[in-house]
């Protein structure tokens, strides 16, 4: 048995050193609301790359992808596909979003809707929905960190205490750092995560089975259907797979923190360069799958959300405490840093588009204070959601995506001079989409053809958008004539 003091000590030391270095490196930057949330719009290709890539390598990638490879097999491959398509979409979409952001000095995703549709109420609705659906994403990071702390503690820390520590760490970091610290800490985090993923995805398979290819062969010998997706309409079958890839690819850049990242760019060129090369970064996921498959052979029998522990249990069982400490430290940073970006995105939505836009809070200083208070509120809600919803990390991610993707039609159509809808139509579409999601979540009903429920909601959203828009246009026309 390993020593929890060594493993946990390393986690604490690495995390504190990274956060201290990041916070220290930006002491010279004067913090106003713009600096805090969009980094003063000064991020070039490299820093933007790190920020965007930092959002990709989260607890979800580190543990969730391996957990699904362990628990479900080929359906986990959807993660490889959607990221790649999302970058292709971002190549065209994000520079346009950036342009509006620069011209009108925007800070949040809801600001974008206000600017494009001239409706403060639509902005408030977008802010509220964005806020609500970021909570499960933050919960994902919290659960991931808690899981790592429990494993690094060799069972000496209970689940609630672990989540409590994770909560304190996330809140503290976000509160003091803002977006600058997030981007800077991402550099260290990415390096550590890459090393940890190479260890888990290459060293583990070689140690136990000689090579990753042998791992695949052995998994196939035990479970011949593990490397292919199930029949078309089956749960997690091909129709689910394709609809989930499409939905999540559309949702990828709709997250509030993605808008913040887009606004923080220096130029469209920085954005396009990233869009072209980020798919290569996705390939690290392949190693995460190998780690999950290796765990399936070495420590079989984990069920449901427990599968998220997969390869970490292998490291805990077969490697010295210090190795476990470093792997867990990398994973902890992979949760902390994206969580901070997400919390910041959610907090600034409410601060800017509800509190400031409706004159509840006045002045730049008050806005910064409000954003900081909201940081604590978001983290507390994520903590609450953790307590009531026990689901796998991928499950949490899919909840967040199904809600956030509902913004896609409103964002894309706003750029079309001919099709640009009435703000009431956009709002109706959003409300219908969220209602459909809530109905599926509440009743547990099956979707037609095994489609992802978010995709069904998105379809209802788009149809009602066009229907309401047709009515709104006619009325506006009639009023013009009269």
């Amino acid at each position, binding site marked *: 048995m390993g020593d929890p003091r060594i493993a946990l000590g390393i986690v604490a030391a690495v995390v504190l050193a990274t956060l201290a270095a990041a916070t220290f490196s930006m002491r010279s930057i004067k913090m106003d609301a713009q600096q805090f949330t969009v980094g003063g719009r000064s991020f070039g290709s490299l820093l933007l790359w790190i920020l965007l890539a930092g959002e990709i390598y989260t607890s979800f990638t580190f543990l969730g992808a391996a957990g699904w490879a362990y628990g479900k097999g080929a359906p986990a*491959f959807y993660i490889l596909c959607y990221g790649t398509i999302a970058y292709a979409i971002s190549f065209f979409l994000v520079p346009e979003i950036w342009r509006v952001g620069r011209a009108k000095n925007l800070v949040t995703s809801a600001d974008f809707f206000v600017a494009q549709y001239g409706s403060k109420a639509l902005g408030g609705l977008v802010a509220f929905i964005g806020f609500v659906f970021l909570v499960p994403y933050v919960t994902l990071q919290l659960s991931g960190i808690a899981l790592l702390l429990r494993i690094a503690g060799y069972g000496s820390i209970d689940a609630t205490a672990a989540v409590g520590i994770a909560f304190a760490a996330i809140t503290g970091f976000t509160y003091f750092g803002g977006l600058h610290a997030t981007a800077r800490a991402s550099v260290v985090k990415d390096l550590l995560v890459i090393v940890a993923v190479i260890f888990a995805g290459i060293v583990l398979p070689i140690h136990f089975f000689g090579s990753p290819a042998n791992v*695949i062969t052995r998994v196939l010998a035990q479970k011949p259907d593990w490397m292919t*997706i199930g029949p078309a309409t089956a749960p997690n079958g091909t129709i689910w797979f394709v609809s989930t890839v499409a939905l999540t690819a559309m949702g990828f850049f709709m997250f509030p923190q993605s808008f913040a990242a887009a606004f923080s760019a220096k130029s469209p060129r920085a954005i396009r360069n990233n869009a072209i090369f980020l798919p290569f970064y996705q390939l690290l996921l392949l190693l995460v799958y190998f780690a999950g498959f290796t765990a399936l052979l070495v420590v079989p029998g984990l069920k449901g959300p427990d599968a998220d522990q997969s390869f970490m249990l292998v490291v805990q069982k077969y490697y010295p405490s210090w190795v476990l400490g470093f792997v867990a430290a990398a994973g902890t940073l992979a949760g902390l840093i994206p969580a901070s970006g997400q919390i910041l995105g959610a907090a600034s939505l409410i601060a800017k588009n509800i509190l400031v836009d409706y004159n509840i809070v006045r002045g730049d200083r008050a806005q910064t204070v409000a954003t900081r208070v909201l940081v604590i509120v978001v983290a507390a809600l994520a903590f609450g959601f953790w307590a009531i919803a026990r689901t796998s990390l991928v499950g949490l991610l899919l909840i967040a995506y199904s809600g956030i993707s509902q913004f896609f039609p409103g964002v894309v159509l706003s750029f079309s001079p001919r099709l640009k809808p009435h703000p009431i139509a956009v709002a109706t579409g959003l409300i219908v989409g969220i209602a459909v999601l809530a109905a599926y979540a509440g009743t547990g009903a099956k979707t037609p053809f095994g489609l992802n429920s978010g995709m069904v909601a998105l379809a209802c959203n788009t149809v009602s958008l066009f229907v309401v828009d047709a009515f709104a246009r006619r009325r506006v026309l009639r009023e013009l004539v009269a």
Partner: protein
Amino acid sequence: MDDDETASQPTVRSYAFAVVPTLALTAGIPFANRVEPHIFGLPFLLAYIVLWIVATPLFMFAALRAMRIRG
């Protein structure tokens, strides 16, 4: 600050380049849903996905080259 990229815009050809990997990784998946043949030790489906990921930056670079100066 306003480099030349700010003034350039995607063309129909840019979109066409981007659509290829997008379709390959969505509509194409059911047709690649097989284990055999293995490629580089990977089962066919996974190899298919990985190859398209490697190819996507090439398509997106082509999309970039196909942009024109806005004017």
